[in-house]
């Protein structure tokens, strides 16, 4: 079962405007799907629709289409990791608490929060409230999930926002590991990838034009 996701003929209209119509794609293990488009083209809407946060007007989204088992909603939610614009980091809690609570919520018990924070380069900032950290540092706290998540499919909305070049480099290394291990990634980004994935698909959403 190498196909993780098939999407057929998605149609999205928001506030009376057609964002995209007849959008279809397949995602295999090891694939990276880079979704491009200008501001307001509907990239975020598409990603949010994939995880069921937004209801679209028409279309079919199927996770693990080759699986013989009936895949109910709970099943795919464990297999997909979604990170949106907002990092989901609590400003009142320290970096360390944020990481361990996030892991607990995703049902992962055996993590080393110190280790994870060191990996994303937040060593020495562990016990500061996250609200005192910069946007990029908060983003890094959220991104620690990528280092322990066991979900094969990552859906990331603008993961590079607010990160410095080191951070972007680090993240792309992690992407490479993930795809090499048979995972797949769907991401939106205004920056071109500096890393060349072996299997890169590009999808351009024009948006608005009818």
């Amino acid at each position, binding site marked *: 079962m190498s196909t993780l996701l098939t999407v057929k003929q998605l149609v999205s*209209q*928001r*506030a*009376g*405007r*057609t964002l995209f119509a007849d959008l279809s794609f397949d995602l295999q293990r090891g694939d990276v799907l880079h979704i491009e488009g200008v501001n307001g083209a509907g990239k975020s809407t598409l990603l949010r629709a994939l995880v*069921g946060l937004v*209801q*679209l*007007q*028409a*279309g*079919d*989204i*199927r*996770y693990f289409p080759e699986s013989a088992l009936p*895949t*109910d*909603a709970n*099943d*795919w939610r464990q297999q997909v990791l979604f990170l949106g614009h907002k990092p989901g980091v609590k400003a009142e809690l320290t970096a360390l608490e944020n990481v361990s609570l996030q892991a607990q919520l995703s049902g992962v018990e055996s993590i080393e929060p110190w280790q994870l924070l060191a990996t994303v380069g937040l060593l020495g900032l562990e016990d500061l409230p996250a609200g005192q950290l910069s946007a990029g540092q908060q983003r890094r706290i959220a991104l620690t999930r990528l280092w322990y998540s066991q979900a094969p499919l990552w859906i990331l909305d603008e993961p590079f926002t607010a990160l410095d070049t080191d951070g972007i480099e680090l993240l792309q290394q992690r992407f490479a590991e993930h795809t090499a291990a048979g995972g797949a990634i769907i991401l939106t980004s205004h920056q071109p990838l500096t890393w060349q994935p072996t299997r890169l698909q590009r999808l351009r959403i024009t948006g608005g034009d009818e």
Partner: protein
Amino acid sequence: MWRWLHPYAKPETVYHLLGRWLPWVAGTATLMLAAGMVWGLAFAPADYQQGDSYRIIFVHVPTAMLSMSLYVGLALSALIGRVWQLKMADWALSAIAPVGLTFTFISLVTGAIWGKPMWGTWWEWDARLTSQLILLFLYIGVLALYHAFSDNRSGAKAAGILAMVGVINIPIIRYSVEWWNTLHQGSTLTVFERPPMANSMLVPLLVSILGFSLLAASLIFQRMRNEILRQELRRPWVKQELAELATQQPAMKEQS
């Protein structure tokens, strides 16, 4: 996971269907209402206790009845919209709510006016009037929530959830208000609970109830049609429909 988000009923079909029914329903409503009002005001005999003041019953009772059933209808359409993902049912909410609100308002005001000659005061904390007042608040809440969203679709869904919560609460509210009323020995004048009526009063009342029901239906149809147009503004058939209307009213076009 799979889901097919297909439209069960085509908005265009419903729009035209409602358009075809509207004149008939509205026409019958006007006739029935006229008949009910004239009969009630001029031909029904005066009440032996309340004299002619009881004639307010011919608007008060129908609107009070409908205000309740419209709220239930509101919640029902919200439920249908949720369970079957029927977007048309979501839209119905914004068509029903203003009608229900107006009817609640009418029943409340006519109740208060009727109370003045009976109790000697414009407002009495009578169980029925108090319940009606709370129902008015519930309607206001639903409408306020609907209009607070810039996106009509989310607004309809949110207001639908509120309507469902409200409809579960209505029996509890009614019961609590009645209990409260007996506790405080409030107004004991049973203006609104009348003994079995003579046919000469009952028949015009039934005619009025029917008339108001049809009026509610035609008002809802009218608003539902507007709502369909608003939601489907980008569809070709709506463009055609509106373009036709625009050419019929050239003055309109220049104005904008």
